[in-house]
């Protein structure tokens, strides 16, 4: 395959952003406000446009280890979209010292670049390298929150858990190599994955997946999620809660494309998915800290994504991809409101939302839309995502998982509804200081996000068609 620059255009744009930020961090000029508030989001937006144009490109590069296909381009688009929102969101961070800004965004951009590479990697070692690129930047990002000891604790937890999970992953990689004699997914796809035929390979693949379960915060690899969300600054948590999950999902989709329903690994995935959604939802019920609550909710959502993966059909993989895009959008919307409300960068409790409808009616509405989307209630995009997932998984041998997922929706409504309840029905205490209304830009972008969630709920077809094309390519 000829190398062609336009095939890796999104990565190149992202690389340019990284380089520019690197120069910026070396230069250490003090007059950088305009750069981070205006130029950087624009550049990230340009990356999104580039990714949008590259939807539909195809090719395979670098000795067949880097594949440009529907799936990779769809996820690159999702990553650039999320990155743009995350950059906009973090551009005025109250808990970040101005001199660390360039480094902060450098790490952020580098992590996103790693995720984009992850989307295209189709060889186990390449996958591993891309995973590390995205993780290492994130390890350094988590503790960047003023002089907050909790952030340091979160950083240590994240890196320890991450190291352990990565070690498992590497161990699994070695087993796959030993058992199946290849590290190329294209070759591995043709191999048998039953316990009887390839026990070493099955163990290896399961362990290899564990590294991504950790990224996805799937039960029982979820322990870091609430603590890291809690400790990291609101803006960092917004990023850590969303984009890395995309990287994990894209690899799991690629790996799941090798599986069929009924395999032992698929059953493991289904059981973990069911456990994850049930545990996440039950644990979230009692949380008072909004970020911890969202942390457990992300555990539950990781379980929902599994529903699409175990279907092992084109529509199942497409639904999983679509759902993770929606997941990123709705979580970022939720975090957007949190970041706007926590003007001093503290962690918000549920009670801090009291009377929000009066203080910031528009943000209250945006939060309500995001919460309803997270539940999966119509007419938001969350419902469409869930509907596609459940439809794809039905009659594929895991009907019980679909029922568990549906019942979990009923559990989860309670704590998401709590957000709306506090924002709309509980009055703020009289002595509470009314924070100033957010700058117009904050409300506008929040409105855009909420609008996107509603729009994708009403007309999901144009976006879903890309996910579907990706799924069809993987499992024709």
């Amino acid at each position: 395959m000829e190398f062609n620059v336009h095939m890796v255009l999104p990565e190149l744009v992202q690389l340019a952003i990284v380089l520019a930020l690197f120069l910026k961090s070396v230069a250490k000029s003090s007059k950088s406000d305009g750069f981070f508030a205006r130029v950087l989001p624009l550049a990230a937006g340009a990356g999104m446009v580039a990714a949008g144009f590259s939807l539909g490109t195809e090719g395979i590069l670098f000795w067949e280890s880097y594949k440009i296909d529907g799936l990779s381009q769809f996820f690159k688009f999702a990553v650039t979209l999320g990155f743009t929102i995350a950059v906009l969101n973090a551009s005025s961070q109250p808990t970040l010292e101005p001199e660390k800004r360039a480094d902060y965004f450098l790490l952020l951009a580098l992590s996103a670049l790693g995720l984009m590479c992850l989307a295209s990697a189709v060889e186990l070692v390449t996958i591993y390298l891309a995973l590390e690129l995205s993780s290492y930047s994130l390890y350094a990002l988590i503790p960047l929150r003023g002089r907050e000891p909790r952030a340091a604790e979160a950083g240590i937890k994240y890196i320890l858990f991450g190291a352990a999970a990565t070690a498992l992953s590497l161990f699994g990689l070695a087993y796959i190599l030993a058992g199946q004699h290849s590290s190329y997914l294209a070759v591995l796809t043709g191999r048998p994955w039953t316990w009887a035929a390839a026990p070493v390979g099955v163990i290896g693949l399961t362990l290899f997946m564990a590294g991504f379960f950790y990224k996805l915060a799937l039960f029982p690899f979820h322990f870091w999620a609430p603590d890291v969300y809690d400790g990291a600054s609101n803006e960092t948590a917004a990023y850590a809660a969303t984009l890395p999950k995309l990287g994990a999902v894209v690899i799991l989709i690629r790996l799941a494309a090798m599986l069929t329903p009924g395999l032992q690994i698929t059953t493991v995935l289904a059981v973990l998915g069911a456990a994850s959604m049930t545990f996440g939802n039950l644990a979230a019920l009692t949380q008072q800290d909004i970020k911890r609550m969202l942390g457990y909710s992300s555990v539950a959502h990781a379980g929902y994504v599994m529903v699409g993966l175990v279907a092992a059909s084109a529509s199942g993989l497409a639904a999983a991809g679509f759902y993770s895009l929606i997941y990123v959008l709705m979580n970022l919307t939720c975090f957007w409101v949190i970041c706007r409300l926590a003007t001093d960068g503290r962690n918000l409790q549920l009670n801090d939302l009291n009377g929000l409808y009066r203080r910031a009616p528009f943000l209250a509405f945006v939060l309500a839309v995001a919460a309803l989307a997270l539940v999966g209630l119509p007419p938001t995009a969350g419902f469409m995502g869930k509907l596609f997932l459940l439809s794809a998984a039905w009659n594929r041998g895991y009907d019980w998982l679909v029922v568990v997922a549906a019942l979990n929706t009923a559990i989860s409504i309670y704590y998401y509804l709590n957000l709306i309840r506090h924002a709309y029905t509980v009055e703020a205490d009289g002595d509470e200081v009314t924070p100033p209304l957010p700058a117009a830009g904050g409300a506008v972008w929040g409105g855009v996000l909420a609008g996107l969630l509603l729009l994708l709920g009403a007309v999901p077809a144009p976006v879903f068609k890309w996910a579907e094309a990706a799924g069809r390519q993987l499992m024709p």
Partner: protein
Amino acid sequence: MSEWPILTVLIFFPVAACLVLPFIRGDRAVRVFSLGVGLIELLLALPLLRFDLSASGYQFQEKAAWVPQWGLHYHLGMDGISLLMVLLTVLLLPLCVLCSWTYISRRIKEFHFSLMLMTSACVGVFLALDFVLFYIFWEAMLVPMFLLIAVWGGPERRYASLKFFLYTLAGSTLLLVAMVAFYLAGGTFSIPELSAKSYPFGFQCWTFLAMAFAFAIKVPMFPFHTWLPAAHVEAPTAGSVLLASILLKMGAYGFLRFCLPMTPTASVYFAPLMIAGSIASILYGGFVALGQHDMKKLIAYSSVAHMGFVTLGIFLFTLRGLEGALMVMLNHGITTGALFMLVGCIYERSHSREIGQNLGLGKYLPAYMGFFGLFALSSLGFPGTNSFVGEALVLIGAFAHTPWVGAAAVPGVMLGAAYMLRLGQKLAWGEPTKAKAWPDLNVREWVYFAPLAVLVIYIGLAPGLTLRAMDPTLTRVLDEFRRRSAMAAAEVAAPLPGWVVTTRSELPASDPAPVLPR
């Protein structure tokens, strides 16, 4: 004019009005605007008069591709069942605005916002002919209703609103699963197409149970009724009216639109259970209503009883039963809505819903008591009022079905008389009265009671038009049902290889996920 998308306009006009609402300043302006929206919505419903009463199929259909990958369509249509329900919904919006004119005194804009969204979603539920579209409207009305109770409700509003939300959502999650199962078994989300297919008995059984669970909660049928009294008591007047008049009907509508056509054999199989549940609702609702001293709670339990008549009528599978069920649905909407408005009306004067705080109104508020008497008589099914027609039809159907079923339902009618007359007697002549200084109904209150009173008497004395509107549709539903349940009964007689196996073998060739396992 023939291209005028009347149903779409009916659904989305209130939504469009909601977008304008935030820009209106002043409480009074908001109320006037909302009233105007309600009246225009009523005018927009006028083209429905072109409805062909003799046709049994769906009319005014609109269809457009929506999510082609999953075979979703934006498909609307109206038959005799939905016609009556939509008219009722559209009629109630302006009345709800009027009855909240002074009752709601804070966050007025948000209140009317929720009210209009509710109306849109309710109209949408009755018109959707695509399962997913139906589900979207079905769920979309939860949030405005939740807010109506949680923001403008009484002292226990937190508990009541959460209970309402959790209960109904728990039911509808299973409906979602059933919907997905139907999609894979039938290859489409279209309600008319799904209704025309037949499914294996095992599949029908569990989908029926999943759907019946959702609808029984919504109706609500004993023993799933416990959310209703809490929600009714705490909701503001307009919320109670919408809840009683429209939301409860959606459960019954679901039985008619989904359970009977899609799972006919299972409906027959489970009919004894549903009939038992209905009779339990009738008797239990009646007995509990007898012991209430909170007026709203009393009417809430009477709703449980009335809705028991509806489900009883549906599961008799006779034309009289279905006619009766639909009549009771319509009449309960009119009468109970009016009763809740009456309670709200007196609450504004006495600030209490206790019967003991509202004694002896007859002498001082004659107009109020007059309306109350009329609607109370209607509620207990007095001949000459609307409810009599419905309940009589259901009872005729019940006796025709099995005499003891009819006999078991009859005490419900007597209970209705007992609790309504007891309430009316205390309100009219009870001592000691505090009502001396209370003003009688004003013009605004007259305006919203009068249309309902006219309907009570009109339908009571001349039910012919209403019956003519519903008969062709119900006949079609019933014929289809009889044909297919008879057909399926033969199938049941033959041994089946088990639930799961039959479900699988029924997958059509056009399976939307035709990817074979590798």
